[in-house]
C-alpha cells in the first residue's frame, strides 16, 4: 500500500490509514467468509495473528531510519491526532485490554478507581508537563532532568527510577502477549513469548520511535475495533440498540434485580464494598499522578511538530483512551448480567450440574491457570465439580456465589460465552495481542533510549557519531527485550504483581522534580536530586516493607503498614515527600544561576523552537 511512498508516511497519513482501515475491515470480512465456508478455527486464529504481525512488521520496515532525531522522537513530525492514537495504544496495556472489564466485573463500583485513575492523569500531563517538555526538546525524560538539575547525578537518579518502573512493566507485557498467543494459537507458552518478542522487535528495531509511532497507530485501530465489537454485539442482542455505553444502564438495573433474587448482599453499583473510601481515593490519586510521570507516556509528547500540537495531542490521547475505558464498564455489566441470568432461571437459584455450560469447562481446564473455579475447585470436569459442591452441601446444583471467574478471562472469553462466531473470537485475540505489543514497544524504547542516549552518549562517549549512537541504541534494544522475554518466560508471579507498583514509583520519583523544574524557578540542583531520592526511596521502602517485610519473605509477620495504606497506593507517601524535600532543600541551597533561571523562562514560552538543538 505504501510502496510509492519511499518510506515517508507523514505527507499521506490520511490516505495510508484509510487504506489500512479498509484493508483490515476487508480482512475481517474474509475471515467471516472463511468461517462460513467451514475453514477450521485454528487456521482463522493463525491468520489473525500472522496478518496483524505481518502488517506491523511491514510498517516497521517501511519506517526504518538512520537519522538520530527520527529514531528518538519520530522527527517531531507526528500530528496531534495520530500522536493521540499512538499514545492510546502505548498507554492501554495488555492488562487494560484483558483485565479492566474483569476487574469491574469483580469489584463493581470500587473497580472504577482504575477507570478514573487511568484517565484523569492526562489533565495533569496537558497542563503541567507535556507542552514544556516538548518545548525543551529533549529525547528522553532523564535528559530533561539532567539539564534542569545540573548534570549527571540528576540524570542517573532519573534513569534508576525510569528503569524500576518500566522494566517490570515490560516483563508483564511480554507475559501477557505470551498468554494471549498461547491461548489463541494453542502453542506452548515459552514459544508464544518469543512470538511476542518478535512482534515487538520488528516494530521498533529498525526505526525506533518513528516506526513505533506508526505501528502503534495501526495497533490502536485493531485493539479498539476488537474491544468495541463484542460490546456492541451484546448491546444489540440484549436491547436492540448498538450503543453499549448507553444501554448498560438497563443491564445495571437487571443486575440489581438479580441480586435481590439471588440474595447477594454486596450491591454491584454501591461504593466501598471491596475497599474503603480512603483506599479508593488514594488509589485514584496514585494512578493519576503516576500516569503523568511514566516516561514512556511523556516521551510520546516529544514527537509533535509544535508545543501547541503537544497540548492538543494530550486531548486526543485521552479521547482515544476514553473510547475503551467508557466501554469497559458496559462490557462488565453485560457479562455479569448474562452470567447471573443462568442462575436466576434455575430451580432454587442453583445451577444444576448437568447444565454447566461447555465454556466453563473449556476455560476451566486450561492448564497452568485457575480461570474458572466452582465450589473451590478448578472447573475441569462435571464429576470433579459435583464432588466438590456436594462436599459443601449442594446436592442438586451450585449457587452463583460458588462460581469464581478470573479477572483476566472476562474479555477474552466473552465472545465464546455469548456464542459469537469464531471470527469475532479471533479478532479479540488480535486486539489483546496488539495492546500488549504496543505498550511493550513504548516501554522498550523508553528503557533502551535512556540507556543509549543518557548513559552512553551523555555520560560515556559524548563524541560518538550518529551511526555509532544508533548502533548502540539498537543493540541495547535487543538486549533489554531479550532480558524481559527470558524473565517473563519464568512466569515470575512477583514481578507481575509489581506492575501495579510502577505508577506509585514513577509518581513518587519523577512527578515533583518534573513539575517543580518547570513551575518553580527557585528549585535547585540539589533540591531536585534530593526530592527524587526521597520520593523514590520512601515509596520503595514502603512497597518492600509492606509486601515482603525486611527479610524479603512474604507473610512472615514483619511487614509494615502505615495508616493501612495498600502497596498499590504507596505513592501517597512518596509524592508529597518529593515535593516537600525538593522545596526545603531548594530553599536552603543557593538560588539557581541566572542562566538556569533564563532557561526556565524560555521553557515557558512556546515561541522560538526547541531549546536543545545544539549537540544533536
Amino acid at each position, binding site marked *: 500500500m505504501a510502496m510509492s511512498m519511499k518510506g515517508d508516511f507523514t505527507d499521506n497519513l490520511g490516505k495510508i490509514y484509510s487504506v489500512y482501515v479498509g484493508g483490515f475491515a476487508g480482512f475481517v470480512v474474509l475471515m467471516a467468509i472463511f468461517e462460513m465456508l467451514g475453514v477450521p478455527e485454528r487456521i482463522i486464529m493463525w491468520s489473525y495473528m500472522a496478518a496483524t504481525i505481518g502488517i506491523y512488521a511491514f510498517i516497521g520496515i517501511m519506517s526504518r531510519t538512520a537519522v538520530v532525531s527520527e529514531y528518538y522522537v519520530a522527527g517531531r513530525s507526528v500530528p496531534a491526532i495520530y500522536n493521540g492514537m499512538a499514545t492510546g495504544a502505548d498507554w492501554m496495556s495488555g492488562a487494560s485490554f484483558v483485565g479492566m472489564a474483569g476487574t469491574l466485573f469483580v469489584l463493581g463500583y470500587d473497580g472504577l478507581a482504575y477507570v478514573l485513575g487511568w484517565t484523569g492523569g492526562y489533565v495533569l500531563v496537558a497542563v503541567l508537563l507535556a507542552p514544556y517538555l516538548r518545548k525543551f526538546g529533549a529525547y528522553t525524560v532523564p535528559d530533561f532532568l539532567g539539564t534542569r538539575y545540573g548534570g549527571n547525578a540528576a540524570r542517573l537518579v532519573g534513569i534508576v527510577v525510569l528503569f524500576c518502573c518500566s522494566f517490570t512493566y515490560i516483563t508483564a507485557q511480554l507475559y501477557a502477549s505470551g498468554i494471549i498467543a498461547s491461548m489463541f494459537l494453542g502453542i506452548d507458552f515459552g514459544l508464544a513469548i518469543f512470538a511476542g518478542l518478535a512482534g515487538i522487535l520488528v516494530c521498533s528495531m529498525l526505526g525506533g520511535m518513528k516506526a513505533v509511532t506508526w505501528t502503534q497507530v495501526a495497533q490502536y485501530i485493531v485493539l479498539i475495533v476488537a474491544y468495541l465489537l463484542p460490546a456492541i454485539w451484546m448491546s444489540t442482542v440484549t436491547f436492540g440498540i448498538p450503543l453499549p455505553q448507553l444501554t448498560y444502564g438497563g443491564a*445495571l438495573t437487571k443486575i440489581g434485580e438479580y441480586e435481590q433474587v439471588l440474595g447477594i448482599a454486596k450491591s454491584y453499583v454501591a461504593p466501598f464494598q471491596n475497599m474503603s473510601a480512603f483506599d479508593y*481515593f488514594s488509589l485514584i*490519586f496514585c494512578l493519576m499522578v503516576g500516569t503523568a510521570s511514566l516516561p514512556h507516556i511523556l516521551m510520546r509528547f516529544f514527537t509533535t511538530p509544535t508545543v501547541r500540537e503537544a497540548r492538543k495531542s494530550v486531548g486526543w490521547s485521552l479521547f482515544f483512551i*476514553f473510547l475503551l475505558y467508557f466501554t469497559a464498564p458496559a462490557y462488565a455489566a453485560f457479562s455479569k448480567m448474562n452470567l447471573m441470568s443462568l442462575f436466576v432461571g434455575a430451580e432454587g437459584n442453583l445451577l444444576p450440574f448437568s447444565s454447566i455450560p461447555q465454556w466453563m469447562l473449556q476455560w476451566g481446564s486450561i492448564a497452568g491457570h485457575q480461570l474458572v473455579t466452582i465450589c473451590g475447585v478448578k472447573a475441569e470436569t462435571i464429576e470433579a465439580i459435583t464432588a466438590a459442591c456436594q462436599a459443601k452441601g449442594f446436592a442438586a446444583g451450585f449457587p452463583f456465589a460458588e462460581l469464581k471467574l478470573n479477572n483476566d478471562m472476562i474479555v477474552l472469553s466473552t465472545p465464546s460465552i455469548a456464542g459469537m462466531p469464531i471470527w469475532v473470537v479471533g479478532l479479540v485475540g488480535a486486539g489483546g495481542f496488539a495492546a500488549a505489543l504496543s505498550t511493550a514497544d513504548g516501554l522498550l524504547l523508553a528503557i533502551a533510549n535512556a540507556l543509549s542516549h543518557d548513559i552512553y552518549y551523555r555520560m560515556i562517549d559524548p563524541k560518538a557519531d550518529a551511526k555509532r549512537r544508533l548502533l548502540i541504541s539498537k543493540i541495547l534494544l535487543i538486549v533489554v527485550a531479550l532480558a524481559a522475554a527470558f524473565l517473563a518466560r519464568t512466569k515470575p508471579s512477583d514481578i507481575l504483581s509489581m506492575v501495579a507498583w510502577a505508577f506509585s514509583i514513577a509518581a513518587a520519583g519523577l512527578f515533583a522534580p518534573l513539575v517543580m523544574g518547570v*513551575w518553580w524557578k527557585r528549585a535547585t540542583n540539589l533540591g531536585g536530586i534530593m526530592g527524587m531520592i526521597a520520593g523514590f526511596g520512601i515509596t520503595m521502602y514502603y512497597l518492600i516493607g509492606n509486601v515482603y517485610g525486611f527479610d524479603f519473605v512474604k507473610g512472615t509477620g514483619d511487614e509494615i503498614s502505615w495508616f493501612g495504606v495498600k502497596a498499590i497506593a504507596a505513592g501517597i507517601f512518596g509524592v508529597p515527600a518529593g515535593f516537600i524535600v525538593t522545596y526545603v532543600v531548594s530553599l536552603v541551597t543557593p538560588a539557581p544561576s541566572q542562566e538556569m533561571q533564563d532557561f526556565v523562562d524560555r521553557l515557558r514560552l512556546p*515561541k522560538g523552537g526547541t531549546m536543545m538543538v545544539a549537540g544533536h
Partner: protein
Amino acid sequence: MTDKLPPEVAAAHWSKTRGLMWTTLAIWAVFSFFIHMFVSSLNGVVILGFPLGYYMAAQGSLIVFVVLIFWFSSRQNSIDEEFGVAED
C-alpha cells in the same frame, strides 16, 4: 526572538498561564475526587437505569476530562497569542 521579549510581558503571560493552570486543576480535582465523595446520595438518582453516582465515575467524569483538556489547550493558545508568544 524570545530573548527580546520584555520581562514584564513574559511575567504577565506567565501569571495568566498560572491562573489557567489553577482553574483547570480545580475542575480536575472536583471531578476526580470531590463529587465521588457523594456517590451514595447521587446513587439515589437513577437515569436510564444508571445510578448517578456510578455513572459519574464510569462515564461522567471521563467526558469532563476530555472536554477539559481541549478547552484548556484552546484557552492556553489564546493566551499565547494575546502576548505574541505563540509559535508561528
